[in-house]
């Protein structure tokens, strides 16, 4: 029989600053945390997107030593800081985590280091390549640095599955605990948003643009949506077995009830597909693993980001899963936090722990095709069951079901 898996700590850093309290405040306010991207390098088109949900400077001093700050890439710094916040939240010292698993998702890896290294190689020649830049250019650098910082000697996994990564990481970590390969896990996601990455996402047509319909903003489920706001940051959680928590005497924030994933092979490499019926079957199967039906879900924390096609697929999947029944309240935190980083995961944990859900930033006009009007920020009873969703461009999909501890 699988053990009970509890979520005992959360740490986040992003456009909202450092700490899940700040994320909770931002989500309650329901205002996008966008700021101007540095376009000085000339990567952007003149008419291109200008805004992203960027981590303000000076957030990590409390969490990293000067030596760590010097040697780590930006995503490693974000991830280690968020991991330490999560450990503190869980009431753990976080320095001797023998046997603890580390599972971290990243969509793009350490982009600053990769860009710097490529410039050295292409502009100055390969012998100019910096060993320290290279060391921290690998996708698993954040997971490795967390493991080193916490002395976490359990399995170390890095998941790269774009927007589905954060929930896949949570599910993979839960699987490590369920299989008895670890009694504790640090799981989450991290990404940085460099000017180059921002410009390239914009050239792909993925980002929100200003238009006659309004200023540049993510508008999840809104009729006027035209792309997402790119985000950055990290969200890490501590998972433990109930038995392990009982032995050390801590408290839980939420329970991981189920996790699942699927793929839509109709999706093009950079877009969402049309396979909502199959995805809905897998979503229902995920709920079924916890003995749940759609009617048992009290709140959906949706990965909808304001993407034209992504939100459409998300709505179709949810509608197909619920059939004729009404959907529970749906909230879309990426309107506040942006896409990528740790916003979705952090928001999901906060919601499951009873933190108030604010209005979905950017939403004003329902899209009749989608048939979803996200939660308006009015008071909700604390949910007993929260479904968290994330559909990735390229076809991947992941769900996690959280419950009361």
């Amino acid at each position, binding site marked *: 029989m699988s053990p009970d898996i509890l979520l005992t700590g959360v740490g986040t850093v992003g456009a909202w600053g450092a700490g899940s309290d700040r994320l909770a405040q931002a989500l309650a306010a329901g205002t996008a945390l966008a700021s101007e991207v540095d376009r000085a390098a*000339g*990567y952007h088109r003149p008419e291109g997107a200008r805004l992203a949900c960027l981590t303000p400077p000076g957030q990590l001093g409390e969490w990293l030593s000067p030596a760590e700050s010097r040697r780590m890439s930006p995503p490693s710094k974000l991830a280690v800081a968020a991991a330490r916040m999560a450990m503190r939240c869980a009431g753990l010292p976080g320095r001797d985590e023998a046997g603890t698993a580390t599972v971290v998702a990243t*969509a793009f*890896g350490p982009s600053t280091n990769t*860009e710097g*290294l*490529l*410039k050295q*190689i*292409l*502009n100055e*020649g*390969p*012998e100019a*390549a*910096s*060993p320290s830049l*290279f*060391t*921290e*250019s*690998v*996708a*698993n*650098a954040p*997971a*490795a640095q967390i*493991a*080193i910082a916490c*002395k*976490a*000697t*359990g*399995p*170390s*996994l*890095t*998941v*790269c*599955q*774009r927007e589905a990564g954060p929930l896949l990481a949570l599910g*993979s970590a839960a699987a490590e605990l369920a*299989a008895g*390969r670890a009694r504790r896990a640090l799981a989450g996601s991290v990404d940085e948003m460099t000017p180059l990455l921002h410009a*390239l996402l914009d050239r*792909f047509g993925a980002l929100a643009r200003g238009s006659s319909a309004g200023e540049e903003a993510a508008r999840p489920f809104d009729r006027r949506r035209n792309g997402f706001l790119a985000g950055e940051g990290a969200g890490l959680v501590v998972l433990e077995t109930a038995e392990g928590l009982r032995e050390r005497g801590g408290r839980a924030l939420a329970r991981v009830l189920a996790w*699942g*994933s*699927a*793929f*839509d*092979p109709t*999706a093009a*490499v950079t877009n969402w597909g049309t*396979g909502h019926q*199959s995805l809905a079957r*897998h979503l229902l199967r995920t709920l079924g693993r916890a003995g749940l039906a759609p009617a048992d879900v009290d709140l959906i924390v949706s990965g909808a980001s304001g993407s034209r096609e992504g939100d459409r697929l998300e709505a179709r999947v949810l509608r197909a899963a619920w059939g004729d029944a009404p959907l529970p309240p749906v909230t879309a935190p990426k309107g506040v936090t942006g896409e990528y980083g740790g916003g979705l995961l952090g928001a999901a944990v906060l919601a499951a722990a009873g933190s108030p859900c604010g209005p979905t930033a950017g939403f004003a006009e329902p899209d009749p095709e989608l048939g979803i009007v996200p939660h308006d920020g009015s008071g909700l009873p604390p949910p007993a069951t929260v479904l968290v969703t994330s559909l990735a461009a*390229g*076809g*991947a999909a992941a769900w996690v079901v959280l419950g009361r501890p």
Partner: protein
Amino acid sequence: MVSGEAAGTGRPVAVSGFGAVCGLGWGVAPLWEALRAGRGAIGPFRRFDHTEHRTHLAAEAGEPPADFLRAFPERKRLSIADRFALFAAREAMAQAGLPAPLDGETEAGVWFGSSTGGMFESEEFFREFLRDRRRARISVLAAQQVNAPGDAVARHLGVTGPVRTLSSACASGALALGAALDAVRSGEVEVAVAGGADSLCQLTYAGFNALRSVDETPCRPFRACRAGMSFGEGAAVLVLEPLERVLARGGRPLAILAGAGASCDAHHMTAPDPSGTGAAAALEAALRDAGLPAEAIGFVNVHGTGTPLNDAAEFQALRRVFGERAVEIPLVATKALVGHLLGSSGALEAVVTILCLMYGELHPVPGGAAPDPELPVALVQEEPRPLDGAPAAVSTSLAFGGSNAALVFSRWVDRAA
């Protein structure tokens, strides 16, 4: 009566098909033929201009078979790593006797490892982008993502179940196989397509050269003169199914994937823990998962990069697990012939481990180099060696960042035959 040897904990999981691409050829047959002969692929290469790099050797995969790409309407958008992955997946599915694409009823998933995905193409884009923003074709970048090879396989096979790419550097492929094993054992899927793909690119070539981790001659794992790794490229894919499913549909298992284990050194970003503690933990976890004692292992397909520190740490790990047997148990060092395939090395070495079990023969590496008196191992050299020990083996993958993975395979024995 049919049964698996050392079928592992939980329901037995069979390898029903495999496919491979590497410097020794496109397909498993040329790979095994060259390995048996101890013939390596590490030599001059043309993937990119390496004139200004510190070293000048790699095991480059040649051109694909002439008609292979015709099956892919989107071929112009496929990265080299995608092409490796798709070839290996099609070969694996064909050997397993499964259709590609799968029928819509089969619960299937894809678990893949990759270190850099389409970085080679990304470099080409970035070079053009730095030169002229307007001329650089953004579509080239679409295949850059690390998850692109695994996704390409899933898309091609029409997979609707779980799809996950793991990117834990050199352990990625082995970790992907471990995750796939979980999914088959638990009943989450009936068919798991698992492996890895990576192509040569300047970023990793220059990066490892900057670390002075690349040998100027073909790598010499566990030898006294070893001076670093050699790069390779390619892909390997294994099809995993419940043993009873393979037998029920009249298939023939190639081997049993009996166990998987993973750990982290939590020691240093690039240097392994010299005590070998972390690597040993992965090995012990894999044996525990397989329900086998160390004595049941007949040979080890070592990570064996040929770097002074890695081989020394791996030997310490072998001593921790095998005790005095660490100096006797035969070691197979595949990287000496195909180079280091980074995120796909664990998958390719899994295929090689199975080939050794199937044919009862351990492939050699070139002889001649003096042994390291500090590492008195029984490296298979010069001539193939009959597998006269236990019909089970372990393959290790020890990565950058301290991520370790180990896989235990056992020979399939058809007792009815």
